């Protein structure tokens, strides 16, 4: 993709990237000095903490709640200490904690002992994740030829994991490459992860480790049957980013919606909290080879898709830097964007094409996640169906990677089974019918499409300059993204943020930093500065 159809100025792209680097720098500084409730809980989960008490409170929460301010030292010490002191397996210890054991009060044993023991569990985690990535790689390689391009992404959202399984298997048989289980409304605001198989959700199904496992199995089953690797997606935005990432790593999810900007703007999560969480969650995703999906596409549900296109591009640049700084390679960055222009806009198709193509050219290696029209979908399911076709067209014609299929009933209800079927046939028809179109056409020099891309890139640079001047925290407060303002100290979850003590200990974090080469990056960065 070295040849640019849009004739974009590579220097400008480089400039935008440098600005994004500068923008995330102060945020990273904040991140490196803090930990959160959910980072500690995620760490505990990776080390083996699991289960719930009779009130349904998860063991990791029990531990962290009991620790209180001791969190500044990291929860690991206390959990591993308890394991050693009680000479217990994690399963045994989890049970005791669920029954009331407070491990924060157990006298600490020798640091070296704790460190060594911790390595054992990290090793166990690594083994399991490695097994997952091996399985995935093997299947993807074996079944490559049956995959659609872009990958077709379908959503299930019945609220009941067992109904979801039926719908997901049907979707896979119909041609989906990716199945996402939408979370129930409001889960992102829960400061814990629910437990076990669940059958009651609103607008979606609870993300639980057991639900992950059930769906993973169902998709593997149908995948084997049809000779395809079906990717499973869930959400690690919200108050439990790293915990859900950890669960995903363990249960072999393949993608995670994962974006603190989304949480801040659309779920009113506190910005400090979620930036800190995001880093660890992305490290886990990177380690488990899980593709993230970022959420800047959502800006266009509150902002106008033409006027504010540059906010999406700018956010992609920022998300890219955050991702690099968490050890994610470009090939795992499913940066988000969307086809949300007013369908009545003259030449709207050309502009959508310009936007999609510029995302493609600016992030050539990223598995871009392209979102369908939602905002301008109405009860006119017929019109909606051709808007979805135009969306599929642009996606194929600009080589998008991950195609979230639009539903003709978007404005009405969460998808019926038949809606999903129609969506897949729509996409398959278009993708086959225009298969080599991207390759067969060129954009006129200085035509509408080229000029539009140039314009958006210029706007992006000005915007990034402004954000850089203000600082990202202030920029968010001042409504610069999605036209939504979030105060720095407002929103949910700030009380779960802790400054790390100089003695803070988190062997999982350190291990991942090492594995992902982040230590050296940090050093290098410092050198450059």
């Amino acid at each position, binding site marked *: 993709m070295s040849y640019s159809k849009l004739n974009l100025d590579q220097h400008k792209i480089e400039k935008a990237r440098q600005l994004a680097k500068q923008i995330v720098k102060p945020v990273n500084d904040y991140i490196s000095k803090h930990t959160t409730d959910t980072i500690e809980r995620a760490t505990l989960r990776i080390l083996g903490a699991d289960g719930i008490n009779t009130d349904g409170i998860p063991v990791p929460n029990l531990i962290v709640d009991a620790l209180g301010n001791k969190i500044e030292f990291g929860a690991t010490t206390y959990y591993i200490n308890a394991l050693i002191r009680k000479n217990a397996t994690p399963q045994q210890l989890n049970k005791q904690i669920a029954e009331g054991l407070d491990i924060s009060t157990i006298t600490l044993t020798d640091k070296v002992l704790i460190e060594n023991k911790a390595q054992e569990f990290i090793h166990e985690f690594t083994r399991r994740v490695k097994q997952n990535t091996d399985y995935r790689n093997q299947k993807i390689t074996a079944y490559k030829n049956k995959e659609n391009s872009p990958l077709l992404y379908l959503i299930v959202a019945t609220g009941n994991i067992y109904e979801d399984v039926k719908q997901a298997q049907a979707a896979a048989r119909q041609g989906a490459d990716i199945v996402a289980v939408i979370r129930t409304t409001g889960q992102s605001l829960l400061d814990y992860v629910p437990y076990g198989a669940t059958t009651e959700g609103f607008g979606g199904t609870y993300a639980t480790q057991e639900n992950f496992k059930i769906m993973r199995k169902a998709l593997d089953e149908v995948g084997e049957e049809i000779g395809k690797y079906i990717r499973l997606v869930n959400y690690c935005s919200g108050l439990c980013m790293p915990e859900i990432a950890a669960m995903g790593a363990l249960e072999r999810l393949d993608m995670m919606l994962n974006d603190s900007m989304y949480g801040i703007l659309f779920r009113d999560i506190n910005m400090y909290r979620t930036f800190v969480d995001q880093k660890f969650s992305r490290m886990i995703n990177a380690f488990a080879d899980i593709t993230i999906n970022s959420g800047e596409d959502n800006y266009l549900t509150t902002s106008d898709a033409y006027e504010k296109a540059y906010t999406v591009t700018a956010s992609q640049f920022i998300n890219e830097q955050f991702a690099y700084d968490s050890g994610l390679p470009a090939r795992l960055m499913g940066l988000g964007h969307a086809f949300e222009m007013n369908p009545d806009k003259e030449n709207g198709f050309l502009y959508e094409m310009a936007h999609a193509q510029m995302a493609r050219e600016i992030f050539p290696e990223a598995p871009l996640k392209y979102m369908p029209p939602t905002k301008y979908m109405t*009860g006119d399911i017929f019109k909606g169906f051709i808007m979805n076709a135009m969306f599929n067209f642009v996606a194929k014609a600009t080589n998008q990677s991950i195609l979230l299929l639009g539903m003709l009933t978007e404005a009405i209800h969460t998808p019926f089974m038949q809606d999903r079927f129609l969506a897949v046939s729509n996409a398959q028809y278009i993708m086959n019918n225009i298969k080599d179109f991207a390759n067969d056409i060129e954009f006129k020099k200085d035509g509408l499409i080229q000029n539009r891309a140039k314009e958006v890139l210029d706007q992006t640079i000005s915007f990034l300059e402004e954000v850089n001047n203000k600082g990202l925290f202030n920029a968010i407060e001042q409504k610069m993204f999605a036209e939504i303002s979030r105060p720095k100290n407002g929103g949910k979850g700030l009380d779960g943020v802790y400054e790390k003590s100089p003695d803070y200990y988190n062997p999982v974090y350190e291990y991942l930093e090492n594995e992902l080469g982040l230590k050296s990056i940090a050093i290098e960065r410092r050198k450059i500065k």
Partner: protein
Amino acid sequence: MIKSYGDTINDGAVQLSFTLPVRHSAKADEAAKQYAHKLGFYEVEIVYSNALSDEFSFFVVYGKTHVQIDYDKIEVEDVSKSMDFYEVNDFIKEHIKRQVVVVGACTGTDAHTVGIDAIMNMKGFDQHYGLERYPMIEAYNLGAQVSNEELIKKAIALKADAILVSQVVTQKEVHIHNMTELIELMEAEGIRSDIIVIAGGPRIGNKLAMELGYDAGFGRGTYPENVASFIVEKMASKAMQY
């Protein structure tokens, strides 16, 4: 007992669209809603409405129904288990022991040849050979716009075992008149019981054809071997082997 399904078993979800002959307005929307209720749906949502003209409005509707049906009681003849090309020819050799004569046409003012061609022409349709290719069948395709009189004349002249009638245009029930006329003419000629008469077309069902006095009717997606099987089995059962 089963019900229509949206995303939960037995939720009874159904999508509808229709036009009402009223000017588009809030009143029209309410009328559409009540109309859907009168049609027997509940939790009705008029999800979209628009003016088609000053006097007509269009509605897209979702609703739910309590209606259920006993799936075990549904009966249907399964044409898909018909014989194939080879089996039909073998069957004729074995049971009828001579070539079967079939005359087909698209009749009346109907000019759609593609359907009857799909059944009869050498090259067939969708990789299924047409009757002309069957060694044990002598097939005559008279084409389209053939009058019933002409068809009968030909069938008598060729000593047809079976007549195939294609009807594609169904607007204003034109096919009903035309199909009925053929049977009446054949009865008048006294040859109805000597010849198997089969109708076909995208909007022809077995039930309709039987009601109109045909031996069978074949709808969309029919393959030549489905018709061939029916003819030869019918002949065998009628012991028409002379």
